[in-house]
């Protein structure tokens, strides 16, 4: 355990977020149980008032979750000099088994909280709150995940032992170790390039189709989700080396360092925002026929699609720009 301001900040924020979602899900459960939009009873009026509180809480929690995601990575990054063998966040995250699961959970919970906000926004446009049950079921799924994340993060920080000799990104993200990362790296570059540009094109075209005609919503959303994963894989496989200008350096975390102008935060933000909004479109698809949402939903979906496409397009543009104009020539 380190007594480091960043760690304390993360502890506090995680506890706060957990408390917030626990509080929210308690009332969420009450809403699931007693909700009756037709009634004007005081219970119902109280529950309706609670929904304001819960959506406020989750909006804040979502923003905090995003901040804490980046703060976590940055803190891991600043801790790396304490561990023998660590070069960047990867090394610190590898110090014990809780590091990477925490990062992954933080990403998932952020995406889920974001999706919740999208559903909430939509729901608030329908005069009979048609998605209320869906919304609060989702909240009940998010809560345990956030609690698990808090516990994992605490385990990670409490288990930080400076005597551990960790492995850094240089050894983790190479072709000759075992694991998902090395399998990605050992894939032929051309395959990854085709996969990246192929799925990206697919997603963007589907996005355009959906934007124009309102058709292929599921396809677009699925493509965005797949592209999300493929983009991360491609980043590890062949995009990162152009940022590092090192043909053997595949680390997805070093890009977050100062030497690269913190461009990594921007890139991941684009990817997260694009992925989130794209997934949101798919999530809203089943509700297009609901009478109270018929009019508003397509417009919301169009907006989401637009944001998603712009984010992904920017991500691709930056990556491609770097590949073409990098000092590294392969």
């Amino acid at each position, binding site marked *: 355990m380190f007594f480091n301001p960043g760690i304390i900040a993360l502890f506090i924020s995680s506890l706060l977020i957990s408390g917030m979602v626990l509080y929210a899900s308690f009332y969420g459960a009450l809403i699931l149980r007693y909700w009756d939009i*037709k009634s*004007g*009873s*005081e219970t119902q009026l109280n529950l309706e008032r609670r929904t304001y509180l819960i959506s406020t809480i989750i909006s804040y929690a979502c923003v905090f979750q995003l901040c804490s995601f980046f703060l976590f990575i940055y803190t891991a990054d600043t801790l790396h000099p304490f561990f023998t063998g660590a070069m960047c966040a990867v090394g610190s995250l590898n110090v014990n088994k809780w590091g990477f699961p925490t990062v992954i959970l933080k990403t998932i919970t952020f995406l889920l909280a974001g999706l919740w906000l999208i559903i909430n926004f939509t729901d*608030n446009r329908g*005069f009979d*709150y048609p998605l209320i049950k869906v919304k609060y079921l989702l909240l009940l799924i998010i809560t345990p995940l956030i609690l698990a994340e808090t516990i994992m993060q605490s385990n990670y920080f409490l288990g930080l032992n400076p005597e551990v000799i960790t492995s850094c990104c240089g050894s983790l993200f190479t072709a000759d170790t075992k694991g998902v990362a090395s399998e990605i790296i050992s894939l032929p570059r051309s395959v990854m390039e085709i996969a990246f540009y192929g799925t990206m094109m697919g997603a963007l075209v589907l996005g355009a189709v959906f934007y124009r005609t309102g058709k292929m919503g599921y396809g677009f959303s699925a493509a965005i989700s797949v592209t999300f994963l493929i983009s991360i894989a491609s980043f590890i496989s062949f995009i990162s080396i152009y940022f590092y200008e090192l043909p053997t350096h595949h680390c997805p975390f070093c890009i977050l360092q100062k030497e690269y102008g913190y461009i990594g935060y921007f890139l991941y933000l684009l990817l997260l925002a694009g992925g989130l909004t794209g997934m949101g479109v798919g999530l809203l698809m089943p509700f297009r026929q609901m009478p109270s949402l018929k009019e508003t939903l397509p417009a919301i979906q169009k907006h989401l699609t637009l944001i998603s496409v712009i984010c992904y397009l920017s991500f691709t543009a930056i990556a491609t720009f770097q590949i073409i104009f990098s000092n590294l020539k392969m």
Partner: protein
Amino acid sequence: MIELQNIRKVFNEGLSSEYIALHDLTLAIAAHQVTVLKGPSGSGKTTLLSILGCMARPTAGRIVLAGREITSLPERFLTDIRRQTFGFIFQHYNLLKGISVIENVMLPAYPQGEPFSLLKKQAADLLKLFNLTHKAAAKVEWLSGGEAQRTAIARALVNQPEVIIADEPTAHLDTRLSREFMDIMRDFKAQGKTILIASHDPIVHESEVVDRVVQMRDGRIIDAGVI
């Protein structure tokens, strides 16, 4: 225009202090008319007015506004309708202290997000209509009773509502100002607005502007008046 069917309003439901404010009340308000709710205090006038004005939801019963059933609309949507349909004038005017007269008039329109300059112009026009232009920048606590009343009326008009709802508007006014208020109401009626007033002031319900007087007692209508 507004129809109430079997409206029931219960406060503190299920508690020992349970109190039924309105008993299965049915009432239809016609458009472009001046309707007065008359009755002693505690007769449920104000509760009825707040349900008519979409400010509160009934415990049971149905409300139909301009052909649309709005009973179970959540507050979010109800407010939107209320903001666009109704203008309120309260017993104590309920002007906000510490801000200027013109800001008070503009206040109901703030959440609409109209361009600010347009909004300001509308408010200024209204103030002009009520001879308050010279007081526009003054704080409301410096206004005389009549000026405060006219400001409150101006505020009720800023969203160009179809219906004006006034709760005991003349309770704190002298006779001259009360008559002046009724004169303004007459102008509104002439403009085609629907007017609802809760009052037990004879100046109000004996005024020739009034089309219908509804008498209430203990949460029930005892005389629905002529339509």
